[in-house]
């Protein structure tokens, strides 16, 4: 039972991007290992390697001294390593007992009564109550997660990996999970807990032995044993997000004096699934950043502002018009442009060439009597390709062939050419290299002269650098607001505050 898992020098890259770089960690029975890190720090990749769904480029995993075959989920499961994924792997229309018993060795005939008894037995041992006969579709997220855990416990897994388990839970459900985790640890299981929320880790540390490893850009940057160490929250936050970027020039641009105009976006108590009454406003001439960890309501908010889904409660005014009036009529959404996070899925079409991708949102400008004037559009596109330095500069290239950065430049050029009064930019610099990132930031700043900008981002540095005001979105609510600081001291203070809000601390 005394399982000891050792991760030795694991590296993994996807194309150009290094997800894990020479990571070594120990996972011990009877302890919780908390993996902290920002989105994209490489936590999930590392754990997928451990669970066998991904194979490492180099390095190995030892279970009680025995090397684990790489990239083999069955072998990992056989060695007692199980993972509760962020997106549950459940059969929604089948019953709890069927989900738990899938793949378990046993008799050919399945008796619902015996299957239910097995589920009840395991769930009572670990305090994870769930009705074995319920269909998954009828369960809450918390109950579904319990089913996922039961699946692993029914197989006698000794090491359980939880990938951001509380992201989908209500506070009450999170408390039940914490109880269960502590129960598992006392029964000698090893638990890996991936998170970016500090309070949870601290709460767990008060009840069970917790090790902390902080991952940043694929590397372990800090380790603590919370039974002996007591790092300050600020220290942990800095380890997670404290990237120092020298962008004095952009900073100067951002701080340059500018005039505020009329309100271009007003949300009052906006309600849709995933948002619980969001109120915010953006004026012409300012950049307002909406910071927060992805999955806290950004997607529904952007979809409402983009006109893809209607608001279900509260009031939204865009460029002075109510939402329904703004998104109806001959030219719906005129004057508002959206730069969605999902460039390939929502902003472009991979099989269409650059000209058609350009026309995707600008088509009305080139329409005369129902016909599209492609020659005129091509001239304008060439200009944009030139201005924004899109590579390759060939209008017949399919959009899918462009790199992420070049695609983003095309999208920015296209949207900015529509002379917007309001810009909604979601993670505009994600996945871009340093040069391209700086370029995108300059262009957003330049946009201030003509429009109001709502910058939806999970990158604190970006938010603090560009925005006049930073709002923090957490669990579908605005946690608070900070204004741009003048001195670096003020900025440092703001960073601390925002970091706490993003982690759900008041």
């Amino acid at each position, binding site marked *: 039972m005394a399982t000891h898992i050792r991760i030795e020098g694991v590296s993994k890259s996807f194309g150009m991007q290094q997800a894990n770089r020479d990571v070594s960690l120990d996972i011990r029975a009877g302890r919780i290992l908390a993996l902290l890190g920002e989105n994209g720090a490489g936590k999930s990749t590392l754990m997928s390697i451990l669970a066998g769904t991904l194979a490492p480029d180099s390095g190995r995993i030892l279970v009680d001294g025995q090397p684990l075959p790489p990239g083999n989920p*069955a072998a990992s499961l056989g060695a007692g390593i199980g993972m509760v994924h962020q997106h549950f792997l*459940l*059969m929604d229309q089948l019953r709890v007992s*069927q989900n738990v018993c899938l793949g378990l060795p046993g008799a050919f005939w*399945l008796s619902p009564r015996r299957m239910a008894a097995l589920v009840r037995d395991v769930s009572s041992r670990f305090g994870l109550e769930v009705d074995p006969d319920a269909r998954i579709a009828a369960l809450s997220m918390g109950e579904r997660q319990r089913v996922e855990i039961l699946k692993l416990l029914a197989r006698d897994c000794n090491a359980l990996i939880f990938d951001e388990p509380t992201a989908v839970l209500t506070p009450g459900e999170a408390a039940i999970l914490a109880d269960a985790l502590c129960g598992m640890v006392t029964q000698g299981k090893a638990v890996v807990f991936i998170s970016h929320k500090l309070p949870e880790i601290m709460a767990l540390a008060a009840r069970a032995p917790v090790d902390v490893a902080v991952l940043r850009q694929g590397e372990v940057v800090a380790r603590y044993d919370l039974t002996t160490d007591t790092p300050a929250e600020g220290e942990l936050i800095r380890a997670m997000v404290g990237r120092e970027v020298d962008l004095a020039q952009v900073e100067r641009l951002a701080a340059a004096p500018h005039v505020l105009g009329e309100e271009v976006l007003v949300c009052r108590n906006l309600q849709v699934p995933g948002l619980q009454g969001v109120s915010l406003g953006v004026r012409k001439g300012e950049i307002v950043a909406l910071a927060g960890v992805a999955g806290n309501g950004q997607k529904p908010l952007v979809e409402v502002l983009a006109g893809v889904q209607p608001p279900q409660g509260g009031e939204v005014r865009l460029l002075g018009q109510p939402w329904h009036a703004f998104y109806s009529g001959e030219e719906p959404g005129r004057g508002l442009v959206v730069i969605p996070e999902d460039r390939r899925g929502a902003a472009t079409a991979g099989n269409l060439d650059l000209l058609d991708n350009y026309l995707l949102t600008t088509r009305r400008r080139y329409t005369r009597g129902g016909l599209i004037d492609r020659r005129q559009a091509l001239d304008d596109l060439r200009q944009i390709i030139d201005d924004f330095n899109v590579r390759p500069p060939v209008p017949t290239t399919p959009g899918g062939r462009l790199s992420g950065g070049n695609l983003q430049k095309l999208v920015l050029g296209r949207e900015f050419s529509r002379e917007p009064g309001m810009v909604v930019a979601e993670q505009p610099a994600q996945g871009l290299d340093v040069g391209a990132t700086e370029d995108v930031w300059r262009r957003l700043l330049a946009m201030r002269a003509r429009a109001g900008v709502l910058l939806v981002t999970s990158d604190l540095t970006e938010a603090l650098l560009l925005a006049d005001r930073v709002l923090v979105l957490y669990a579908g609510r605005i946690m608070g607001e900070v204004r741009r600081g003048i001195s670096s001291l003020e900025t440092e203070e703001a960073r601390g505050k925002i970091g706490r809000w993003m982690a759900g601390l008041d």
Partner: protein
Amino acid sequence: MTPDMVDMLAMLTPLLAAAIQSGAPLLFATVGEIITERSGTLNLGVEGMMLCGALAAFVVSLGTGSPWLGALAGCAAGALLAVLHGLATLTCGGNQVVSGLALTILGVGLADTLGAGHIGQVAPGFDPVAIPVLSSIPVLGPALFTQDALVYLSFGTPLAVWVLLFRTRWGLHLQAAGENPAAARAAGVSPLRWRWIGILAGGALCGLGGAYLSLSATHLWTTNLTAGRGWIAVALVIFCAWRPQRAMLGAYLFGGVMALQLRLQAMGAALPSSLLLMMPYAMTVLALVAFSRAKSRAAGRNLPPAALGVPLAGPQGGEGR
């Protein structure tokens, strides 16, 4: 009992018997397609598989003199065509709708081409066998228990499939392939293997449905023997919400409509035959409409398998991320 009631009951028995007979091929095909769709593959080639099954059954029965060997050949022919669907969709990752359509066009073409020489021939088929005691139950007895062997088999098929799907490990594995292949893979169950099994088993049952048409319903071969029954079966799968036990209800309902329509024609009803012939097709559309309303009302019930039509990632069944 008044003489009127006796008359009505006398009418009812043959109609019931006819409904069960017309329903039997639909039942085989519907249950077969349920198995295939439960494993996550949509196979629109039912019509083609049925027709090829009908021809193979007829030819083998004609050649060997054994209708049982014929029925077996029908299953084999259906499964063989289904292999093509598996190769196109599972091995090559092709679109399931297009592959199913191609299978129908190909299957109908093959059957009519190879069967052209047999038109009008008579093959040994299945004849009604009265089951002692049971067949003497008034009204129901003659309808249910004076049928041929394939009809008796059709009573047992949905029950057997229900038990296999919902009471055995195999059924759970097959359903996992159709509900969430990733979950199956994580639990050490190969969704690729179970999708193949689903496709083959479904093809065999569709072939058996065809065999019924050429060996039981008629004992002779004509072109276009199925007359759209394969497509009705595809619609019945939706109608009965992917449940084999409900397939009986749907198949006998539609069998009843077909039987009634034939009976009315034979009786020289005032309606022209083309309008009567429309009944099953129009009813199929109505059934889908009614069901879809019901679906939106009962929100979240009677849904198709979650991964129906979703290809497995990667040609080898999910080596990719």
